[in-house]
């Protein structure tokens, strides 16, 4: 497993070096999309729900990794990281929405329970 991981890392590094020579363009569009996704997740309350926060963290890490890669001239790998970041950000937002909806449903249920209790007494 360790050997495998090491190998993959090595392969990725070599691959990155190779791709860097290809001279792909700086992924401005992907960067903007990923960043917009992160902002949407933040506005959508992702930071308030642990599972959403985790995905948001992944997205931010991927963006940071992409920035470093762009600096090194590996635009192709940076593009991949940014696409992953966008998927993470979207997931973060969805989870936040799910949690929020669940919370609201629970509150609605609670409200009825209180009313029932009042009706009973």
């Amino acid at each position, binding site marked *: 497993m360790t050997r495998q991981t090491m190998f993959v890392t090595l392969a990725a590094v070599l691959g990155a070096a190779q791709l860097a020579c290809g001279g792909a363009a700086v992924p401005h569009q992907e960067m903007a999309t990923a960043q917009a996704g992160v902002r949407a997740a933040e506005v959508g309350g992702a930071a308030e729900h642990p599972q959403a926060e985790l995905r948001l963290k992944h997205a931010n890490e991927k963006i940071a990794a992409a920035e470093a890669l762009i600096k090194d001239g590996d635009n192709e790998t940076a593009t991949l990281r940014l696409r992953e970041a966008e*998927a993470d950000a979207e997931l973060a937002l969805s989870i936040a929405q799910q949690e929020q909806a669940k919370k609201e449903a629970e509150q609605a249920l609670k409200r009825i329970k209180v009313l029932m209790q009042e009706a009973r007494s």
Partner: protein
Amino acid sequence: MKALTWGTRSRLACVAVVALGTLAGCGKEALPPQALVSARQAYQDAAASPAAELAPAKLDTAKQALTQAENAWQEDPKAKEAETLTLAYIAERRALTAQALGEAAKARQDRVKLDEEYMELQEKRANMTAEELERVRERLAITSQKAAQSEAELEKERAARAEAEKKLSAAVASLAEMASVKEEARGMVITLNGAVLFTTGKYELLPIAKSKLDEVAKALQEQGFKKIVIEGHTDSRGNAADNDKLSERRATSVKDHLVSQGLDASKIQAVGLGASRPVATNDTPEGRANNRRVELIVTN
């Protein structure tokens, strides 16, 4: 089945690469299927979730992402490794996204229903009948079960019991105008005024008596009982044999009606006692009216 096929492919590819002398190729290829397997699993889970019905567009997006990942890997496992991994990574997250959005939609639906129920409940609260209360409580118990099963079960049982008690007292209260209820040594005695139940000399139940008895039957059914003795009584006018016969027929009418409402006939006994047990004087019209009665003695 599908995963097995992929595995086989992967192994075959490995063998081929090893034969060419590049051990490195194997490690490279073993990983994409793993990432793909996660993505496939995530998609399957999402497809089986409320997303299928409530977030079909997102689910379709997830499917497309998965297809892209599968294609990239299938096309050229070795050269496209980095892209395949990314596509699989994205596919898995798209599937999880679809699932989360499906669950969110489901929760919103629940919430709308609960809100409607709340409004309805508030409206009806003042004049809610015991039956409606029970219905709502049942639905409530079902919803609670999803949220907290064990807690909900306890609550449901408690609610059902409270409800049964409430219904019984409500039925008894509505009976008050035509009946009285007393706790006596022989059991709970429900005394029904003969004038409300029957017309003079007849033993068919009046419609109003039937509807009241329905409520009693329902309450008894829920509360549970060991035995019910139904006693028919008359005043002292007329001859004793006729009175005995009439009082027995009347008691039987009440029994038959309770049985028709689902009570266990084997636990109910109907007897006619004629004028033998007056509860008031037979010398005044008022006293005689009180003596004309049917008594239900309920033992638990």
